[in-house]
């Protein structure tokens, strides 16, 4: 592999993960905070809130996973190598 391409790919992979983690981090924090608030307000709804929260967290997590897929493609299956 051309060293320039290798270096650029490694930097791009780390940026892909790092930047893709920002948004979902904020979103998951918001969702978890609201869920805690909801449980504190209405403890009897805990089961329902927890189920919905886990499902929503999985959706947000997938945004970072898209970044991870790009990073993996750059590292292991680089089209420019």
């Amino acid at each position, binding site marked *: 592999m051309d060293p320039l391409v*290798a270096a650029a790919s490694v930097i791009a992979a780390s940026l892909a993960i790092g930047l893709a983690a920002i948004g979902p981090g904020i979103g998951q924090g918001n969702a978890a905070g609201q869920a805690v608030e909801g449980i504190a307000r209405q403890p009897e709804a805990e089961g329902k809130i927890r189920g919905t929260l*886990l*499902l929503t967290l*999985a*959706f947000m*997590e*997938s945004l970072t*996973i*898209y970044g*991870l*897929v790009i990073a*993996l493609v750059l*590292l*292991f*299956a680089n089209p420019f190598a």
Partner: protein
Amino acid sequence: MLNFLSAVSSLPLAKIEVGHHLYWQLGNLKIHGQVFLTSWFVIGLLVIASLAATRNIRRIPAGIQNFMEYALEFIRDLAKNQIGEKDYRPWVPFIGTLFLFIFVSNWSGALIPWKLIRLPEGELAAPTNDINTTVALALLTSLAYFYAGFSKRGLGYFKKYIEPTPILLPIAILEDFTKPLSLSFRLFGNILADELVVTVLVLLVPLFVPLPIMALGLFTSAIQALVFATLAAAYIHEAMAGHGDEGHEEH
């Protein structure tokens, strides 16, 4: 890349490799043999479990019949919650197949010591960590919701593209492409990420330390199977209901 890790490769551990496959030549097609082997294993497991559960059905369920009835009830509730009381019944088999296949594949990759079976090239893992499997499942979902909408509403189904305003037509068409894309990438990325994290941790500390991450992997794989099935059901419901012309039931 990652050459420095080859020093520890004498241990019987899974290697960090993405994109190495056991190729089978089938006519003009090159297929990934290890994915087929594990998929057949998963399918066989599911078929045997279903046959064993329905072989002698009792009025009071016990053993595996009890377990499979619980699984069926879970899937039926999932479909009913998403699609609604009226039309959910025909879609239970499809959504149940998706859920069970993905769930058992994900867990088989984590729980069964595939590494003990040596292959000439590549290695056995969960079928869902190959993007071809997840893309196939996602495209099946696309076909399913097209069929659902078309059979329920006829040509009126295509009105949804220009429904609020024709300006949004490109976005509505784009949505049909991003749905399978995001479905397949989500599943593929999660499973591959789990396996990679576990492999890297096992390389660093081979004993005990990776166990919590493995447990987390089991949890996320189960959630991903649930998410895939839920989203498939939600897309089918959206295609059948249209954009608010019948009024959404509360879920």
